[in-house]
């Protein structure tokens, strides 16, 4: 118990503070979605469950989220190569397609409402609105983080944006895409 361990950097698996924070946050978000999908799968076995049709717009929205994620790959490559214009193009793509996704989901809710699939009329409807809304809220979190980073990049703020920061932002957007892919496939197949 008395061995001296000098100059040891106590970093968990060589990760930065922000990376540990981000991965933990993603774990918490995953658990939240896990619980709600569990509740969904439990509740759908009851007699009153009536699945609702998937609005075609949701497919386009999914495409937008894929492009937002691709934008972050583009931005990461730009940051890695110290190529500011590619960094900006990538970030712009993420922002535009990310916002498009959020607006598209709202539009999809309106469509469902127009065709009589009201929130409270069936538990399947309620779950659809709730799950997609929760996901959009987390995408909005990504948009807020994107705004913070983009402000620094586009305003030439003194606070530099590192490849590490872009990488972290990218991980969140890819994660949002992954979560959506899983949720969408559950909503689509049940």
């Amino acid at each position, binding site marked *: 118990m*008395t061995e*001296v361990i*000098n100059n*040891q950097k106590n970093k968990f698996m060589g990760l930065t503070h922000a990376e540990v924070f981000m991965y*933990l946050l993603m774990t918490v978000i995953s658990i939240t979605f896990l619980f709600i999908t569990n*509740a969904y799968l439990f509740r759908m076995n009851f007699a009153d469950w009536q699945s609702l049709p998937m609005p075609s717009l949701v497919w386009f929205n999914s495409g937008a989220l894929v492009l937002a994620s691709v934008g972050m790959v583009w931005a990461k490559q730009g940051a890695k190569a110290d190529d500011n214009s590619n960094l900006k193009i990538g970030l712009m793509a993420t922002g535009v397609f990310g916002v498009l996704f959020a607006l598209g989901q709202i539009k999809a809710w309106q469509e469902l409402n127009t065709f009589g699939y009201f929130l409270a009329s069936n538990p399947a409807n309620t779950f659809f609105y709730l799950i997609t809304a929760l996901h959009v809220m987390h995408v909005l979190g990504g948009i807020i983080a994107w705004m913070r980073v983009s402000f620094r990049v586009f305003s030439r703020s003194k606070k530099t944006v590192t490849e590490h920061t872009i990488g972290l932002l990218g991980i969140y957007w890819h994660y949002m895409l992954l979560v959506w892919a899983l949720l969408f496939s559950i909503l689509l197949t049940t």
Partner: protein
Amino acid sequence: MEQSSAYEGQPLHEPKGWWGRYVFSQDHKVIGLQYTCIALAIGLTGMFLSLLMRMQLGFPGLFESIDAGSYYQDVTMHGMIMVIYLLTALFLGGFGNYLIPLMLGSRDMAFPFVNMLSFWFYLLSVLILVSSFFVESGPTGAGWTLYPPQSILEGTPGADGAGIILMLASLAVFIIAFTMGGLNYITTVLQSRTRGMTLMRMPLIIWCIFLATFLGLLAFPALLVGAIMLIFDRVLETSFFMPEIFKGGEVLDYGGGSPVLFQHLFWFFGHPEVYIIALPAFGIISELISCHARKNIFGYNMMVWALIAIAGIAFIVWAHHMYVAGMNPYLGFFFATTTLIIAIPTAIKVYNWVITLWNANIRMTVPMLYCLAFLITFLIGGLTGLFLGNVAVDVPLSDTYFVVGHFHMVMAVSPVLALYGGLYHWYPSVTGRMLDDRLGKIHFWITFIGTYLIYFPMHYIGFLGVPRRYYSNEQYDFIPQSVNDLNQFITICALIVGAAQFILLYNFIVSIFKGKKAGSNPWGACTLEWQALESPPGHGNWDEQLPVVHRWPYDYGLPGATADFVPQNVADEDIT
């Protein structure tokens, strides 16, 4: 803050002015104190509510203002306040914030701004909760478990007004606060330990807070999801949890939902919550028992693995709260088994504490008194838990006062005893002064004996079959007069114990100004929080160099050393 090249550790947020230093502070010590003060204040409110309940049970009809509705509101708010807003917040927000960076030799939490936000969200959640006392139909009276359908149906206090909505909203905000704090605690433990502070050299309380935080981060989302869905059912009349309900011959808009689904979500959070409270209490006891018995903690590695086992098994015992909910009896068998299994690592901890005391140089300080009281109380509460963990015994005892006696012993009195021990122990680190010993002992004996006089008879009342949650025990033939006499006795004891808590409050306030100067390490502890140059530690905790850790945190009675303890930051060659 400009850092000199010799300055180690993460960059620090220099507080700007009085507001930045004491109100919107990012310093973990100030945030810890803010958490502690708010938690104690709301805890006093919770205690006051319990005294109102006791007055009704002991002396029915004495206060006209206590009717059935307000009684249920008191029950609900008392439970929720004590479990979430006092104990969870104080153990993790208070002790966690204050101790983690200091004990790990760090300057602050990994993300001080997020840490500050965590406190302000916590305060917001408390304010939302308290605001429900002032809305038209008052706070919710659904019981702290908030079971639907009853919790959101007209007739339950607070259900037709904003009470239940405010409760659920407050919980959601609390969970956001907890998540921000919790992510910080774990990141700090994993990333910000000073040189030499390996995971297996961390004080046990840090292990406990670390694991309790993990439990919270994985369990609170279940409550969040349940709360959001319940808000939907209440506000938008959806039917996640609401079955078909007939009221006065008319069918309500609800239908098809499952109340048991809510129970699963609630208890998937609810049982780990017991350990979110218990683990930090274990940690406090481990620190105090070793320090005040001047002896190495027995079986450090075993203690850590027992904690990890408890944290893991805590997630597969939840449905022992639901034996009478109508679930599959085979599931009951599974959950009874896991419940009994969790007693094994818990027993390991208790044995290790007892063995630590064996042949030790025990100092009967106030913190040590609390340790001993905790050991006995936790043992008794744990043993009655074994009764209730068995389906066949639980079914007749379910919803009786036996359950009330059990859970108060194990997750109310025990953690509070640990909490008080911790407050007496670390008060000198926070203020630089000692609490008054005589007042401390008076407070201890009244609290310790008093709580036994309160909760022991409840076990007996429970065996008689007296149901819990009844507003009045009159007019029931099966409840004998002796129960009413006992209830009067319990109420008088509760009033005395309640009043005794003001001794602690008085001691706290007066000792800040008139307490004996503590010096830097009044208890002769080995852990780092007592080794800072300044006492109390200043902003940034350490001077330019961070401490270097050379040993585990319990080197008491080291052969060859003059003092009976060797701090963690003393190298072998520096031992005198």
